[in-house]
């Protein structure tokens, strides 16, 4: 189920990358893909009926089905931050692109040259 959502979101992101001529929109599409991939990863670690992988006083008695997989969560934590870094970099670049080429629309940008 969640897999489907994430994959459809990826599809939308790719659709956005393909159709949008505005560079900012493309960056947003990339952000959507990032989010979708994160959802996908978490979904790959979900265990039906499992609990969040944090020990409290109430203890489960079996490993099987007791917790969801913590590793994908750790990975996603990393992936989110990496995504943010890349997107912030992209935003900064766009500010400069706008200054240099006067426009963010691929077809109206000035001085792009070859």
């Amino acid at each position, binding site marked *: 189920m969640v897999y489907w959502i994430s994959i459809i979101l990826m599809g939308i992101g*790719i659709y956005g*990358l*393909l159709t*949008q*001529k505005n*560079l900012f929109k493309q960056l947003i599409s990339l952000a959507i893909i990032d989010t979708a991939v994160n959802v996908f990863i978490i979904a790959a670690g979900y265990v039906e009926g499992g609990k969040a992988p944090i020990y409290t006083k109430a203890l489960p008695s079996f490993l099987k089905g007791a917790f969801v997989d913590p590793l994908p969560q750790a990975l996603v934590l990393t992936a989110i931050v990496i995504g943010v870094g890349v997107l912030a970099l992209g935003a900064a670049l766009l500010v400069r692109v706008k200054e240099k080429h006067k426009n963010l629309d691929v077809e109206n940008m000035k001085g792009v040259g070859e």
Partner: protein
Amino acid sequence: MAITLISILALSVAVYFISKLSWKVGAVINALAGAYLMIYLFTLKVGSSEVLGTLFGEKLLLTYTNASFYFSFVSMLVILAVMVFAIKWLDSQKYPSAFNMFLLMMTAASLGVFFAGDLLTLYIFWEIAVLSSMLIVPMGKKEARRAAIIYAVMSATGTYMYLYASFMIYSRYGNFNLAEVAKDLANDPSMPFKVTVYLLLAAAGIAKSGIFPLHTWLRIAHGNAPDAFSAVLSGQLVKLGSYVLMLVTAFFPTLKMFQGLELYSKIPSPNYFLLALGATSIIVGTLMAIKQDDMKMLIAFSSVANGGYILVGIATMDAIGFEGGILHVFNHALAAAIIFMAFASVVYRTHTTKISEMGGLIHKMPITFISYLFAIISLAGIPPMSGFISKWMIYQALVRKGMFVTAFIAFFGSIGSFLYVFRPLAGVFLGQLPKKYKDVKEVPAIMWIPMVTLVAISFIMGVWPFPILKPIEAMRADFAISPSVKIADASNWLVRGVTGSWNPVIVFNLFIIGFAIAYLLYTLFPKPKKVDLLAPHKEEGAPINIYTGGEYIYTPDLYQYNTKMYAGFERMYEKHPSWEKVLDMLCKFFHDLGQLVHGWFFRPSPSAYAFWTVMTLLIVFWVRW
């Protein structure tokens, strides 16, 4: 051999730095090295063999054969002459140090090509020769930069085909060694393989010696290279191609290899294909040479035609044809070298190569004129000079094989060559002397001595060709080309052909007698008076020209009689199909393809990148899922 070649290569780098201090010293060192190599050739024993080193686990062999000797000798003759010539000539050049270095490097590499005992060694030295000569070419006129690129590309086209074929051979026989490969090829059952290999190997020779489909670089490269280097290009480098063509057609046992593919008079069809290319080159070269106004380009096209003669001679698979072709290597090398050196001398003094801008230099530069005259006599194949003998031998072979179309083409080329060699003669040396060349002097002795020496050699070989025919006979014996008759018969002063024999000594004597009679007549009759083209009537003092029927000549250049000298003849093929244009189109095609790739994949916006990424992903998925 190995040590000599390597030390000469190393010396060439040293020469660069020496030339930086004084290029004259560098040029002298070059000439001394050339002289040493010349002597060295005679000290080597035929049949000796040496290992240069190992590469990819294969030994790089140097083998000294009769063919090596002959080709190296011809090369060194030309190069040595140019090296001596360059000692003075270089002061007109912009890059004397680099010229010295690359010339010596090229010399060593060319000898390496001739000494090579296996395909790989040949390739290595070949590439070094191409590289170093390719770097000399752009030192010439402005157009020469483009010329260098075209030269490099054409040459590489052939070379890479050659390389492909050599590795095909290696993967099949596990051997690069020429002698072994020749044996293996003779016994190989696979005909398509043999034909492919044969044609691909020949491609290198075709590209280098300017045979028809890859001939276009000759015009631009010979025409624009530094003037003295054109002599090396045309006289020596082109002969590397002839050497490779000789290797693949004569050294490889083609008759045995292509048994069953005989097309016509026992010539296998692959050989016949090469022969046809040679014949085409004769036509193309001759016709195009007649059209040229630039004297260097004119001789460049004549090199195409003469390369064709050499190939036709070798590809006849007949003893006398082979010998004729190989002898033509010598003749053309010397003639072309003399002609280009003569041109270099003219350019050295006049700074132009346009025939229509010159004239009347015969009085100013008589020695150059004499050298040129003898060279064109040889080139056109007129009897007393050596050029006739080789052409005659080729005709003999064609007649024996019954190839009358090719024979006709060869005759046609000969007649054409009378036409085109006469054009610079008339334009440059005869006729009226333009005013601006009033103070032109003969070139210094250091420049004309090499020319005259080559003329002398060429002349002597025309009268007494047996010394040069001796190694050729030996080569023919090595390659076992039938029929094994004795062609050079020194004791009877005869060169034996099919329809008859040629006695050069008698012919020479006849010519001497004829010349004496002509000279007698010349001295008996009154001499013509020399007038200025624009000479006004002295008596009346009016600016009326006496030669133009009352009209004053505003543009005397147009009335120079060698402007459009063969206009009528040229008009016959004014709109000729140009192979150069075809190649240009090919270049443009690749260029456009590059633009297409650039525009589709590299230029566009991120959307297109996303498109290609996802498409690739989908295609890979679709292929593999």
